């Protein structure tokens, strides 16, 4: 059924043998379920060029026809105001797919047909898949696909994608339409009233100046809608003289957008009049009942805390043991075996292979269980429809920071690990909100840092450890809030993000969709982050090992000693600086490094005594403060690069954390000394 080999030898490739089909649809209509059914795991997940929007495509063979299917990002309409919508429409305009399959939710048909109205304006052959027929029926909504097909003038196929009903017929209809367009005589929404003449006038003015592949009628319509991107292009095409006329015309009809949008819904009402019957009284459905609790101002918060509690519980019960199993059994054994195999070779080679390379591989591997759990949870919450409720409930807490509810969800993931927090920021639509969330994520204390805190706080403060630990976690959150407020008033000023979000109906999660979600994201992280983690791991290993013989005489130690004047501000000697530097690879490395530098042995009771003897409480407090606020670990930095597609934001983040951590560390140390803390 599936063809896992997208690239074939040129010999057996007939000309035009591959059909290009685009899969379009509004968010939450079960589009990815349809896509996963068609392509299985042979799908390729990547990004649209230069965009942070996910691009999925796959190839399958149906009735001897090779079909390349591209999953367009979920889009409510085709304006240029969101990246998703722009990507979707650019694809249709520039790649000219043979057929576009639109998946629609039959229970919200009117709104879903808005996207159809927009796509029809692009003049591309359409097939409409009416998904969730079962949901519509359960709500007492009767949809007759045949009647709708006759009204719309394009193939309409009923679907229940979660039970794989109708998907084969949908593809069949698309393949048939590609070869024979006789079933495609679409009714198109047209303009009424005075704007019809304006459109004709705009077309006459711009006419031949509009280059291929743009359709003049569509360009005129989008100009009248006030589309920013098309306006920019048209201005360049028109030239100053003509543009003055166009601009005057547009200004006189500024309010045309109201008529255009209402006109689309008038057309939709005509299309569905005979095909859809609603129950006279809207039934109180399952979603209404769930929402009485899930979006309740008080109970909603408890439900959310419960959901997060469950996620972290699964992380500790499932992911943590797998993580340590991978670390000890897999990487540990490999390291042991490799060390034995390399006994005859120079010491540096063994060190490089065992500690540098395999050490880095170990770090990459130990991220996997955590990522699987987090993406599983995120996929589950998204697929059931709960995620948007959680965002709605948390929105009021995040407003002060200039952030929306979805940022809060991403940041909460950060308590487990900052990597999924950074990657989770992609669910935020607005770019500014996404960047700010990514920037703030490392201020959330991750489990690795909490572990360092839990180990070191008792060493320095004995009974006061608990108080110190809680204070430091609180300090992190306070800094997060302060940076959030400051950044949203400066860096992201004036970029108010309108909060408009659909809360879809709840439905049962689909295992296939969630597995594909996990698979795609984990693979993507591996592809993008693994090499960066490996390189940094090897570089830090080399800096700590050369020129030898021990870490005390290494380049890293020299580096630490050269920073002694800075360290003095925080009461650090060079060893604490080196421990901090090594924590860049992985936060928990700080303890291992301290063990080597102070104890020359394993982190245990001895280390605790030695540290307590060598490090003054004021320095210890400053060290913990800096550790909690320090530069994000390399995996987080790699995730930042992956999500922002540039090195600029990771760099901004590293510098910001360096500045904040060193300032806070110095303040804490000087204050502690002044108060004669711990004397």
């Amino acid at each position, binding site marked *: 059924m599936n063809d896992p080999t997208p690239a074939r030898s040129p010999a057996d490739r007939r000309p035009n043998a591959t059909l290009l089909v685009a899969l379009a649809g*509004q968010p939450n209509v079960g589009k990815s379920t349809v896509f996963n059914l068609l392509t299985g795991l042979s799908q390729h997940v990547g990004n649209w060029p230069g965009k942070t929007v996910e691009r999925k495509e796959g190839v399958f063979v149906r009735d001897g026809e090779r079909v390349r299917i591209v999953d367009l990002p979920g889009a*409510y*309409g085709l*304006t240029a*105001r969101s990246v998703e919508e722009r990507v979707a429409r650019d694809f249709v305009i520039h790649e000219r797919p043979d057929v576009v399959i639109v998946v629609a939710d039959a*229970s*919200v048909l*009117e*709104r879903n047909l*808005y*996207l159809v109205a*927009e796509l029809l304006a692009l003049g591309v052959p359409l097939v409409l898949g009416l998904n969730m027929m079962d949901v519509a029926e359960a709500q007492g909504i009767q949809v007759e696909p045949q009647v709708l097909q006759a009204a719309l003038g394009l193939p309409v196929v009923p679907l229940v994608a979660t039970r794989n009903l109708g998907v084969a017929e949908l593809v069949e209809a698309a393949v048939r339409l590609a070869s024979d367009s006789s079933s495609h005589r679409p009714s198109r929404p047209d303009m009424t009233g005075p704007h019809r003449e304006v459109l004709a006038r705009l077309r006459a003015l711009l006419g031949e100046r509009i280059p291929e592949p743009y359709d003049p009628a569509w360009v005129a319509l989008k100009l009248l*809608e*006030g589309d*920013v991107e098309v306006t920019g292009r048209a201005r360049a095409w028109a030239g100053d003289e003509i543009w003055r006329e166009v601009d005057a015309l547009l200004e006189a009809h*500024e309010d045309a*957008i*109201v008529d255009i*949008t*209402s006109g*689309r*819904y008038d057309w939709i009402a005509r299309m569905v009049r005979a095909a859809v019957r609603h129950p006279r009284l809207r039934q109180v459905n399952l*979603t209404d009942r769930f*929402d009485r609790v899930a*979006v309740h*101002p008080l109970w909603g918060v408890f439900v959310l805390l419960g959901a997060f509690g469950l996620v972290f519980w699964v992380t500790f019960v499932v992911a943590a043991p797998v993580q340590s199993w991978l670390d000890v059994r897999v990487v540990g054994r490999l390291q042991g075996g490799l060390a034995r195999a390399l006994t005859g070779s120079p010491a540096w080679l063994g060190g490089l292979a065992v500690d540098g390379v395999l050490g880095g591989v170990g770090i990459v591997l130990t991220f996997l269980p955590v990522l699987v759990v987090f993406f599983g949870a995120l996929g589950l919450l998204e697929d059931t429809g709960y995620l*948007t409720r959680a*965002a*709605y409930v948390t*929105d*009021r807490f995040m*407003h002060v920071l200039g952030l*929306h509810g979805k940022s809060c969800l991403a940041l909460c993931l950060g308590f487990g690990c900052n990597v999924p927090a950074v990657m989770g920021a992609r669910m935020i639509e607005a770019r500014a909100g996404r960047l700010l969330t990514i920037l703030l994520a490392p201020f959330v204390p991750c489990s690795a840092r909490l572990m360092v805190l839990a180990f070191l706080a008792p060493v320095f403060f004995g009974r006061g450890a608990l108080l110190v630990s809680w204070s430091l976690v609180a300090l992190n959150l306070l800094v997060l809030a302060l940076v959030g407020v400051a950044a949203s008033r400066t860096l992201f000023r004036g970029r*108010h993000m*309108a*909060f*408009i*979000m*659909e*809360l*879809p109906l709840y439905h049962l999660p689909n295992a296939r969709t969630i597995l594909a979600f996990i698979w795609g994201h984990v693979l993507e992280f591996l592809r993008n982050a693994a090499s960066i983690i490996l390189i940094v791991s090897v570089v830090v290993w080399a800096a700590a090992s050369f020129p030898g013989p021990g870490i005390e005489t290494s380049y890293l130690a020299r580096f630490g000693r050269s920073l002694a004047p800075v360290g003095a501000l925080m009461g650090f000697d060079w060893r604490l600086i080196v421990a901090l530097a090594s924590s860049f690879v992985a936060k928990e490395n700080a303890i291992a490094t301290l063990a080597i530098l102070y104890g020359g042995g394993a982190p245990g009771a001895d280390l605790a005594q030695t540290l307590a003897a060598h490090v003054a409480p004021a320095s210890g407090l400053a060290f913990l403060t800096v550790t909690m606020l320090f530069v994000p670990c390399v995996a987080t930095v790699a995730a930042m690069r992956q999500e922002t597609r540039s090195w600029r934001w990771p760099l901004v983040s590293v510098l910001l954390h360096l500045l904040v951590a060193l300032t806070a560390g110095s303040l804490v140390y000087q204050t502690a000394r002044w108060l004669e803390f711990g004397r």
Partner: protein
Amino acid sequence: MSPTRCVRLDELAQGSRGIVQRLVGGGAFTSRLAALGVTKGVRIEVLQNRRHGPLLVLARETRLALGRGEAQKILVEALPDERPDSR
């Protein structure tokens, strides 16, 4: 149907309904809401409205969360209560 009876959507109490009369947030706002089902003439029901924070509304079978600032840009004509016992 006189325009004087228009209120801002955020002024509608929880459980009450209205007909959208105007969107005053500019073209981008108008087209964004249109794609989500909110246009002039549509019936809208306020599912949840506390004194601060976002609102929850229902229009064209779609549940929408709207920031308070966004709700203030939607002018509606309030409809008399049909079912005073609801919610």
